[in-house]
């Protein structure tokens, strides 16, 4: 028997269906839930990474902006316009963000950004991002200077010498030559003149120098080669930031000191920008000097005093000391110290001197502005009025201070002589920098038998940024040469070793240990020039304008920027379409802030509205914002009426028994104004010659009636041709046939301009 479903079965089926449906539905809901959670998580991640980026930017401005270890919130301050830390957390929509900073070291911090939110009530979610920020901008002892002291003790036997450097030479450098050849058969009894050494070539062929053998070679020359030259060649290079913390080599001149000459001038091809920062490194104790002088009586041919004047002039002098001076050639390097350096130059002259050079009265001094002794080095160039080295002539002790005192500051420089009271004439250059470390040591008189002397100095940290200099006196007699020529260099971190070619004669000395290693480049310039606000246009023609503005500075409105970028466009210029605007070439080089600048712009389209804008860049380059955007319209091209008139004679013909010239048209090409013909001068040639012009009709009107032979000045009824219109010169009627004549028409317009159409052969 068939039975229907029992109620139980039905309920069971419904329940089963319900369970299955519930499963599906919950899957769906859960999936949707998953999407929502994923979305929330994505947004939370964006907020967390925003936190990381914000902290990164705070770090980028300065690592010191990061606060001490702890938990912070972030806020984009609307007043300050940048991210700052605030409170212990911050909330965006439903997301709460905390930034936890942990110190790893003084220059490293861990940043943990956690973002949490309530997905549903009581169900909290969170995401966490971690990064590690370092103080990467911290300068890690970046060196401005590289100093290398090369000891030459053998190998320089001829008249030329190639010094192979440890590395390629930088273009900003200078050389100091210290040393001697024990010239003469007597083991050093004769003068050193012909053994003086000069720098004569470098890798760049700078100035008057030749080009050396390689990018790491310097070439030196001397004129005599009796014995091998011994000494120290110090090469000082600027690696970075040469305009501020270092120095620039502008040019090198080979200065000729003519035979018997005691003073003169020479010029550099490339001058300096600030004479107060210039050091002329030259002469026998600088970048060298060479001379063919061989006499054993003159030892001072290369003893020159050097000082700059004007923008590129080298002034030199030397003293003949009662004996003739032969020709000599000095290598003079124009070194301009950076803006961080305080450079002074004074002349120390007089005839103070004395045995031991250990009394104030034995020095000739000159006053300078007070400088810290430990931050200042000195270099002197000059001469005395006697026979030169050995006669205590050039053996001049140059030092900072009064020659004896070694206080922390100094207000003078001193040039003293051992033994003789000869007149000293020295120019002393004084170079100070806050991060320079100089150790001055006085070496007392004595040690006549030594060829080597070690002075203990302060320890120097960096062996590639230090140099030693020595200036000494000498107990001179007529046969002492070249014993006073000492050369100094660092033997190790706290020892300066001075050596000489020949022993004999007592000597006092001042020794400088000069340590450049703490001089670091200045932080990069991040300040852009200010935007120009007074750009102004003056229309000067149909295709030209003059642009005027006031120079901004390198940093905002101070200093001198490097370049301008002037552009124009027929649309208003903004930073967005700046790239599409037309660049003007040949902008002037910026003058100092506040100066008036001007430039003529040509090749513009007539009668066109142009917008101009300018930006300024500094040396980095940081580019300024956009200037104001003035606009002006170039002048329209204004033509004379005659220039608008086009006479078409291509269809000129004869009718009326060949007496009427027809088919000429007159066109006004001006699109805006009418033109008026007041007069037509008609002339013709050809047989028969007695024909006469009778009538002229233009555009349907008789405009002239007469009876004239050629030439005819037909003062016609004024014919006005409207803009952009062509009318017919209906006919010129003659009394006879004008077959085979040549006709000339000159149109005189109402503005006085004329148009001549000749050679019409109808």
């Amino acid at each position, binding site marked *: 028997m068939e039975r*229907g479903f029992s109620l139980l079965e039905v309920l069971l089926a419904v329940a089963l269906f319900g369970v299955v449906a519930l499963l599906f539905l919950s899957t*769906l809901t859960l999936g*949707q839930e998953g999407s929502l959670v994923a979305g929330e998580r994505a947004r939370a991640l*964006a907020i967390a990474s*925003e936190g990381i980026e914000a902290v990164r*930017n705070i770090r980028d401005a300065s690592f010191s*902006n990061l606060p001490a270890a702890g938990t912070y919130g972030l806020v*984009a301050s609307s007043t300050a316009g*940048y991210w700052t830390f605030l409170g212990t957390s911050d909330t965006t929509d439903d997301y709460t963000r905390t930034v936890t900073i942990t110190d790893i070291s003084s220059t490293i911090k861990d940043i943990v950004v956690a973002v949490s939110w309530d997905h549903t009530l009581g169900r909290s979610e969170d995401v966490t991002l971690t990064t590690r920020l370092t103080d990467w901008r911290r300068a890690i002892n970046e060196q401005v200077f590289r100093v290398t002291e090369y000891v030459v003790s053998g190998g320089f036997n001829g008249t030329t010498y190639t010094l192979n450097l440890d590395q390629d030479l930088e273009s900003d450098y200078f050389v100091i030559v210290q040393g001697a050849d024990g010239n003469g058969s007597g083991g050093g009894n004769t003068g050193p003149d012909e053994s003086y050494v000069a720098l004569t070539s470098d890798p760049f062929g700078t100035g008057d120098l030749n080009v050396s053998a390689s990018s790491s070679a310097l070439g030196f020359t001397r004129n005599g080669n009796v014995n091998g030259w011994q000494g120290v060649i110090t090469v000082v290079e600027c690696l970075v930031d040469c305009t501020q913390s270092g120095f620039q080599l502008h040019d090198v001149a080979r200065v000729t000191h003519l035979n018997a000459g005691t003073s003169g001038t020479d010029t550099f091809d490339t001058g300096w920008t600030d004479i107060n920062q210039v050091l002329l490194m030259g002469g026998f104790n600088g970048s060298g000097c060479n001379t063919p002088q061989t006499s054993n009586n003159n030892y001072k041919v290369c003893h020159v005093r050097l000082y700059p004047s004007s923008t590129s002039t080298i002034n030199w002098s030397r003293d003949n000391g009662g004996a003739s001076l032969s020709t000599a050639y000095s290598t003079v390097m124009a070194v301009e110290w950076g803006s961080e350096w305080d450079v002074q130059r004074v002349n120390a002259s007089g005839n103070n001197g004395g045995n031991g050079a250990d009394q104030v009265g034995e020095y000739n001094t000159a006053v300078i502005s007070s400088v810290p002794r430990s931050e200042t080095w000195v270099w002197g160039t000059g001469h005395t009025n006697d026979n030169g080295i050995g006669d205590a002539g050039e053996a001049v002790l140059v030092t900072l201070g009064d020659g004896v005192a070694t206080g922390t500051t100094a207000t003078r420089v001193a040039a003293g002589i051992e033994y003789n009271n000869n007149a000293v004439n020295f120019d002393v250059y004084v170079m100070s920098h806050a991060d320079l470390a100089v150790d001055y040591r006085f070496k007392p008189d004595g040690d006549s038998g030594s060829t080597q002397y070690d002075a203990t100095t302060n320890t120097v940290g960096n062996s590639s940024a230090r140099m030693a200099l020595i200036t000494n006196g000498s107990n001179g007699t007529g046969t002492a040469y070249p014993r006073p020529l000492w050369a100094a260099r660092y033997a190790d971190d706290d020892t300066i070793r001075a050596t000489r070619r020949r022993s004999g004669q007592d000597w006092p000395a001042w020794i400088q240990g000069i340590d450049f290693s703490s001089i670091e480049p200045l932080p990069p310039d991040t300040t852009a020039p200010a935007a120009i606000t007074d750009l102004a246009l003056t229309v000067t023609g149909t295709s030209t304008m003059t642009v005027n503005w006031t120079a901004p500075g390198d940093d905002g409105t101070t200093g001198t920027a490097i370049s301008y970028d002037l552009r124009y466009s027929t649309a208003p210029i903004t930073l967005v379409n700046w790239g599409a605007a037309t660049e003007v070439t040949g902008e002037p080089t910026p003058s100092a802030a506040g100066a008036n600048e001007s430039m003529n712009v040509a090749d513009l389209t007539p009668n066109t509205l142009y917008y101009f804008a300018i930006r300024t860049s500094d040396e980095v380059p940081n580019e300024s914002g956009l200037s104001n955007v003035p606009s002006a319209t170039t002048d329209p091209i204004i033509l004379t009426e005659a220039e608008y008139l086009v006479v078409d004679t291509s269809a000129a013909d004869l009718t009326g028994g060949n007496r009427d010239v027809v088919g000429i048209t007159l066109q006004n090409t001006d699109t805006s104004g009418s033109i008026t013909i007041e007069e037509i001068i008609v002339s013709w040639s050809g047989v028969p010659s007695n024909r006469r012009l009778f009538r002229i009709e233009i555009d349907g009107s008789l405009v002239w009636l007469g009876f004239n032979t050629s030439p005819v000045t037909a003062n016609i009824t004024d014919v006005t041709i409207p803009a952009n219109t062509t009318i017919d010169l209906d006919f010129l009627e003659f009394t006879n046939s004008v077959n085979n004549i040549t006709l000339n028409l000159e149109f005189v317009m109402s503005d006085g301009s004329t148009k001549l159409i000749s050679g019409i052969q109808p």
Partner: protein
Amino acid sequence: MRYQNPQSGFTLLEVLLYSLIASTLLAGVTVFVSMTLEGNARQRVITDVESEAAAAIERITQVIRNAEGITTPVIGATGTTLVLDVVDNALDPTTIDVSSGALRIDEGSGSPEALTSNRVIASNLVVSNLTRGASPGTVHITFTLEASALTGRSTLNYSQTFYASASLRYD
């Protein structure tokens, strides 16, 4: 007497009962199917908004990080368009803005490229230049993405405000 009929049919009551059961079942199935479709559509909407936003944020922050500088808005200012000075001159300037409901990026002189599709509507782009002095620059961006209302049904409305920040790496 007992009434017997071997071919017994349904009584009216039974018919009504069965109809009731059948219609209840049908109604249940219908609701179930419509909920499934509705849920599917809603999920699609959520996914569209979230994933397009994620992709756009990724692209925008990437471009900012690689830029040389921020041209507009200027430091401390807020605007509706971001103009970047990027390393590659051919892509200068790179502009990010909202136009006709789409987030767009315009690199150089080419035509703008949409970062979002027509399935979502972008609006309320706010760009803040939060650069601190002497730092390479940082930009904060917020924008709203809303699913295009295909049917006008309120249940398919899904709108979110997104936040992104990026600091320039170029220095």
